[in-house]
């Protein structure tokens, strides 16, 4: 699991770098982008 910081451009929250293409799940948690990768336990999305 890794995180990518967010920035605000023209009032839109945007990652500061491109998202990886091999992620299993990406979550924006209100602060940053959390990248779940192979082997990570995935959170329950409700």
């Amino acid at each position, binding site marked *: 699991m890794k995180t990518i910081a967010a920035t605000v451009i023209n009032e839109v929250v945007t990652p500061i770098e491109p*998202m990886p293409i091999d992620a299993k799940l990406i979550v924006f948690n*209100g602060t940053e982008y959390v990248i779940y990768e192979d082997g990570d336990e995935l959170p329950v999305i409700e």
Partner: protein
Amino acid sequence: MELSNPLISDYTWANKPSVAPLGQIICVTDIGENGSLWRGNGTKWVRLNPIKIFSLSAPFSLTNSTSVVTLATITIPAGLLGANGKLKIYPLWATTNNANVKTLRLNIGGVVCSTMTSQSVPNNSGLLIIRNINSESAQKCSSGLVAGIGASSGSIASPTVDTSAATTITITGQLAVGTDTLTLEDLFVEVV
């Protein structure tokens, strides 16, 4: 027997021939899932089939925020659409099943083109279409639709984004109530 077709040559979108002889077919290797076939009409290269140019690599969830958040960014290569090309964008998105509004927006070149909202359902499967209308710099798309197609009381959006240059499509999500969740489960984009 060895498969061989010397009549179809491989090019990239950037280095394809500037002349497009009538009837000549080429393969553009970097456009489409495994390349795409284009046929010259004497003036330009014309795609022979619809082409899938983007597929979301992983589900994307948004929660704990009421901000507008970028969920996906897609680059359309310069000139790929042509003067009458259409972009078909197919989102599948799940939401917390309550009455709070969840919003998915489609931006082209930084301009909001379509807005889809969801309330009191667990998921939506939509179709958003951006249409170049006789110009690479004049688009039309419907707006204000819950699912992207059907009747709408909203006016037709008319962006003027120059698609003869590389163009960015952005999908954003927004929650009216931050404790809800919006998950973009899948998204793919087709050029027709």
